[in-house]
């Protein structure tokens, strides 16, 4: 998305300054525990991805951070301001895109953004500039005078996103910001998040794992109201079961089974898994899992030496970096 945004006050804060602090946050609906004692901090310049299966409690957590839901227990502080004690001051700092992008259907895009600007305390030329900039940033110029109830889903989403950045907030909380957007717009929103994230603090939830790798500096996986993983996308990926495995393709004069047997004998190999489906001559395709992730490098050189000495030809060799969706599935499927 285009348009330049001014540098916020948070730019002057140290990089590790805690803009959002969530402590022992709990939310109970009747007997249902939607969020169960969650704590985490988010610093300036961090883009935090919220992952988790449906019903994990992502939206509920975001609603408590933005002050919509009152927590059953625990508290939220925004730039050092307690949300329960001084809600208006804390809310001023946040731009929020709720799930499903709610909008007033009886307004036009322009009048809706003006209304949002009014509630944000903007007036006069500051208001005009802010509305213009938001329209431009979210590519809404062509539909500015269209009634919201006639907008397509993607445009509705962008209108609500425009509302969240209209006051140029230091903190952005975006609940599934790319939901319903076309691939070009998805990429634009990711770029916007990355660009804004350099100087601001952003939490966004998503079900698209590539998005996390593309835009986040950190990811939290929530399941059944609890944090089950927290780290950079790279750290999380190494938790995949076959992360670090060496994937190979080896052509041999003998059979694939012979290659598999030889690979199994290597000192650093823990297990060999073949991807050969049927009779493929002497070609072996599969991966070798090292005894511990730190042994991966050694294993690769052993495979290389094996091929040299036995006269196999090694046509492919690379290390599996681990895939986020494998991690996601492994972590959130337990106890189902």
């Amino acid at each position, binding site marked *: 998305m285009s348009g330049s945004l001014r540098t916020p006050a948070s730019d002057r804060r140290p990089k590790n300054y805690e803009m959002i602090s969530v402590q022992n946050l709990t939310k109970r609906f009747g007997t249902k525990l939607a969020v169960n004692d969650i704590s985490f901090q988010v610093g300036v310049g961090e883009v935090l991805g919220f992952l988790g299966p449906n019903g994990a409690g992502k939206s509920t957590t975001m*609603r408590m951070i*933005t*002050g*919509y*839901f*009152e927590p059953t227990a625990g508290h939220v502080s925004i730039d050092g301001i307690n949300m329960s004690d001084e*809600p*208006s*001051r804390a*809310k*001023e700092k*946040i731009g*929020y895109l*709720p799930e*499903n992008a*709610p*909008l*007033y*259907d*009886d*307004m036009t895009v322009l*009048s809706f953004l003006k*209304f*949002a600007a*009014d*509630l*944000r*305390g903007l007036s006069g030329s500051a208001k005009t500039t802010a509305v213009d900039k938001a329209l431009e940033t979210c590519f809404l110029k062509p539909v500015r005078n269209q009634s919201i109830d006639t907008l397509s889903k993607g445009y509705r989403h962008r209108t*609500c996103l425009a*509302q969240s950045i209209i006051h140029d907030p230091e903190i952005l909380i975006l609940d599934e910001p790319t939901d319903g957007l076309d691939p070009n717009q998805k990429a634009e929103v990711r770029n916007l998040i990355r660009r804004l994230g350099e100087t601001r603090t952003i939490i966004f939830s998503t079900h698209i794992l590539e998005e996390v790798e593309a835009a986040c500096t950190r990811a939290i996986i929530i399941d059944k109201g609890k944090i089950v993983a927290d780290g950079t996308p790279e750290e999380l990926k190494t938790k995949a079961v076959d992360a670090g495995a060496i994937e190979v393709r080896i052509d041999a004069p003998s059979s694939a089974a012979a290659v598999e047997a030889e690979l199994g004998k290597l000192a650093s190999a823990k297990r060999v898994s073949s991807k050969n489906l049927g009779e493929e001559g002497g070609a072996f395709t599969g991966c070798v899992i090292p005894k511990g992730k730190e042994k991966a490098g050694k294993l690769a050189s052993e495979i290389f030496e094996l091929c040299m000495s036995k006269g196999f030809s090694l046509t492919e060799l690379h290390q599996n970096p681990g895939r986020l969706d494998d991690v996601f599935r492994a972590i959130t499927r337990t106890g189902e």
Partner: protein
Amino acid sequence: MEIAVRNIKAVTKRELVAYFTSPIAYVIIVIFLLVSTGFSFWVGDLWDFGDASLTWTFFFFLPWFFVVLAPAVGMRLWADEHRQGTIELMLTMPIHPWHAIVGKFLASSVVWAIALLLTWPIVWTVQYLGDPDMGPILSGYLGAFLFASSCVAISMAISAFTRSQITCLLISVAVCLGLTLLGYPQIVDQFMKMLPANVVDGIADLSLMSHFLDMTKGVLVFRDILYFLSVIVVSLLVTNIAIRAKRA
């Protein structure tokens, strides 16, 4: 304080624009003008009544129209916010929920102020027919405005509990009708047969109708105004409780 005024103004403006960009406000105002003037000419016999005050020829009928039409104005105020999910936007803005509640209430009472002002030709009519005493007419109009505003406030409170406008409309009409009938002579007589007199007086005192009739007779009692204002304030408080309950 300045901030509160600014926020209330923004909310009121949005709601008023919403009322007048959709047909709802026009439809309600037109229906109201037709039935209120229609009744006073044909049922109220405005031409022949001889009495130039509007108490029995015009004001007397108004509560029945308010009871049905005012909830139609108030029903969308929060039901729509719940249905569209926009309440989540509204309440995560840096405004106090009271600003939104008061702003919405003011917008809907402005709709009624406009509707009532548009009935003013009936005053010209009685001025043409005779020499009316303007005191009761003005206090009657004030009473009518407070009556309509009370019904709107009640329906706003009910709309804060539901996402369905039609549910809100039906319950609001029932509540407003009940509050109106409490003071109606036939109903009071029925109560008289069952309950001690002071209890009946207390119940009748809760009626929107009896306070309104006092005001149309030109008995501009501070007590009546206070009564309507307290109905409004209680409704706004209930609205606030309903909204808090949804978030807790």
